[in-house]
């Protein structure tokens, strides 16, 4: 799982049928929680109703499909929690959370 912030939403009419009715969010991963192969924002399916500016936990891979109730969706990332608060240990708590790529998205939803 990774921690990231919702920075956008995507609409698509023409898509794989399994994505019908699914909400697609653009997620900017926090640097420390991003998988090593991620180099940019990612798109995740949202079944919880997260909005732009909120911080979320995104699960990746097969667990993401399972969390959506189907293993037959061509999906590799899903929002599995909307973050209320983040608490960090003291050695990291003094430093601000940074985003992958360095540029902070708009909105300061969570200040740990």
């Amino acid at each position: 799982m990774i921690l990231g912030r919702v920075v956008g939403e995507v609409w698509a009419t023409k898509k794989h049928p399994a994505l019908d009715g699914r909400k697609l969010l653009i997620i900017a991963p926090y640097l420390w929680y991003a998988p090593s192969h991620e180099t940019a924002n990612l798109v995740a399916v949202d079944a919880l109703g997260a909005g732009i500016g909120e911080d979320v936990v995104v699960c990746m891979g097969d667990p993401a499909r399972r969390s959506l109730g189907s293993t037959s969706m061509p999906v590799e990332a899903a929002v599995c929690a909307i973050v209320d608060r983040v608490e960090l240990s003291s050695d990291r708590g003094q430093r601000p959370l940074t985003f992958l790529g360095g540029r902070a998205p708009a909105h300061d939803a969570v200040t740990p």
Partner: protein
Amino acid sequence: MRLARVVGAVWGARHASGLDGAKLLTVESSNGGRVTAIDRLGAGVGDRVLVAHGTRVRDLTVGETVALKDVIVAIVDGVDDAEGDGVDEAGA
């Protein structure tokens, strides 16, 4: 999954048997990374698309015989992001 823009098409007369009849498009995400993905939705050059990656995604969409792991799963109509700009600035 990532947002990307279609920048070109790829043809090859001689290809792996699983790619018979497949339409291959080169897509570029805003960080400049390019991959070639298989397209069954009819995307064209300039279209913004959603690209999913992985063997499971490939198996579920285009079949196990396709020798590619990147699949175009949606053609994007619109993007609403925090800065109010498009896919390129969304960094996806």
